[in-house]
């Protein structure tokens, strides 16, 4: 199969046999066909069918390529198809998840669902998530207000002032440790803190913000640090050489240069903590009423609302057809859909902001 005769000196063999462009498509079709046939005959489920088809494709294309294109081509095909298979495998749960939430939750969403709270809602009365949306937005906003300055200044210290210092090394280490704190531990810490200050019965939204900021600060520090490091030292030196003090160099040259990336990082960190449940369960508690006051009384957020709607879904109305789910289940799906939309909106905003503040050329 391999060429035995060395080409004569002077010749320049640049052309080699290649599989036609439709080869991957053909192999995929054959793989799915063969797998489907086997699945039909043996009576397998859809999972076994897909897995076998993927395996046949990943094995088949390099084999064919090895015959036609040789070793390097075959390896290339193997890696390419492995990467594509991994990509599709990673995409399946994501698409599946969005599809499930959409199909289960969409029917629940209406204007009443978004503007009613759950006060005195019994059975399958029209309830809503207004109180949970308010709770989520307030708690997350307060967490961001705490985390952004702390994280930003911490990152500025690490990159601009602390280079090579012992303190900076310790802070980096502690930030790394903080990244790994389980969220429930952050919640228990906030609870312990506020119980110590205000007595054992304390439950308040601001406590949730403190717990969430513990989770958010390390993410903000990390992303801001990366962005600051991307700013070339040339710019700092150019600024110093003009007789600009260091703090003005940082605030007027370094930060504006990477502000797009920093804001993107902060928005993504917010999107990451907005879905936290565990810390809010213990410190923010749960209520059926709208509460605009972060510093008093319990406050429900969307994830906590979803948790309680799912674990305590209420009873099925006696006149409902058999097999009907309790009303809480549908509300949980609806709230989950709203939460996903909020997170996606945040991601979208992050991208737009990154685009707007990106350094313009030309």
């Amino acid at each position, binding site marked *: 199969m391999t060429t035995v005769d060395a080409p004569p000196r002077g010749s320049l063999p640049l052309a080699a046999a290649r599989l036609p462009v439709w080869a991957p498509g053909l192999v995929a079709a054959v793989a799915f066909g063969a797998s489907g046939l086997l699945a039909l005959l043996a009576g397998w489920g859809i999972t076994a069918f897909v897995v076998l088809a993927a395996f046949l494709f990943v094995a088949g294309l390099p084999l064919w390529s090895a015959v036609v294109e040789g070793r390097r081509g075959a390896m290339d095909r193997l890696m390419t198809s492995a990467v594509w298979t991994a990509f599709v495998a990673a995409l399946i749960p994501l698409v599946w998840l969005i599809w499930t939430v959409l199909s289960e939750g969409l029917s629940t969403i209406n204007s009443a669902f978004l503007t009613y709270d759950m006060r005195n809602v019994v059975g399958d009365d029209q309830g809503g998530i207004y109180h949970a949306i308010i709770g989520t937005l307030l708690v997350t906003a307060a967490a961001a207000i705490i985390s952004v300055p702390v994280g930003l200044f911490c990152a500025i210290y690490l990159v601009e002032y602390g*280079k*090579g210092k012992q303190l900076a090394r310790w802070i980096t280490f502690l930030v790394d440790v903080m990244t790994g704190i389980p969220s429930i531990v952050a919640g228990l810490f906030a609870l312990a803190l506020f119980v110590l200050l205000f007595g054992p019965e304390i439950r308040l939204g601001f406590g949730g913000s403190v717990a969430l900021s513990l989770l958010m600060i390390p993410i903000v520090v990390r992303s801001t640090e990366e962005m600051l490091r991307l700013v*070339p030292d*040339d*710019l*700092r*030196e*150019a*600024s*110093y*050489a*003009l*007789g*600009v*003090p260091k703090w*003005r*160099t940082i605030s*007027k*040259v370094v930060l*504006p*240069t990477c502000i797009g990336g920093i804001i993107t990082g902060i928005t993504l960190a917010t999107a990451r903590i907005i879905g936290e449940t565990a810390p809010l369960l213990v410190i923010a508690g749960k209520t059926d009423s709208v509460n605009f006051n972060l510093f008093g009384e319990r406050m429900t957020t969307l994830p906590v609302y979803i948790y309680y709607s799912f674990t305590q879904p209420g009873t099925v109305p006696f006149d409902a057809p058999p097999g009907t789910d309790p009303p809480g289940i549908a509300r949980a799906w609806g709230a989950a859909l709203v939460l996903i939309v909020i997170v996606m909106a945040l991601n979208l905003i992050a991208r737009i902001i990154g685009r707007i503040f990106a*350094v*313009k*050329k*030309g």
Partner: protein
Amino acid sequence: MAKSIDVSDLDIYYGDFKAVEGVNMTIKARSVTAFIGPSGCGKSTFLRSLNRMHEVIPGARVEGKIMVDGQSLYDSAIDPVAVRRQIGMVFQRPNPFPTMSIYDNVLAGNRLNSKRMKKATADAIVEKSLRGANLWTEVKDRLNKPGMGLSGGQQQRLCIARAIAVEPQVLLMDEPCSALDPISTSAVEDLIHELKADYTIVIVTHNMQQAARVSDDTGFFNLKAAGQPGHLVEFNSTKKMFSNPDNDATEAYISGRFG
């Protein structure tokens, strides 16, 4: 307004590593002084120590004396920020601020120091500096476009305009033409000739012809051996350096026999 610089027994360190040792020289006011020498011999390090840019690098320090206008630059009472306002610098690679327009880049030194000025004054400074840097005719119609959109040579002249907009006493140039094509190089050299009337200029260059063309005095730096600190071998008028140098090593370097 230009000032002369007196350097005596200057040693420059990066942490424990001695990069340059025992430099003595007098840089004359309203003249161009060039430094030549092989890579890594401490020319740029020496240049950066002249406006206290050297200490921006962690662990870097200087021993010895640099006197400007009767004041010792490394005295504890001296504010490095004030020094850099008087002794400007142009770098090897053009580094305009990417977030700013051409106009704002020229004014950066004034604006970043929060000097408040009228629009007319600002316009006058921008035009004067850009004319000084030979860039005015090329950019006067697009002053509000980003500075990064210019070509490499234009960017470098923009950086020079930015440096002279704050009207320093001394202008340090660290291989300002090494990234430029011959046409831009000659534009920068013409500029150096013009700036000489008002500024004390110190330039580091790898280009011997350039040193011969633009400078009045030349300093030759060299290494004794790899890992050893660099030192000033000879400091003389350019004419003498390139025709009849005192030192054999200088002649060997200039005639291209080593380094």
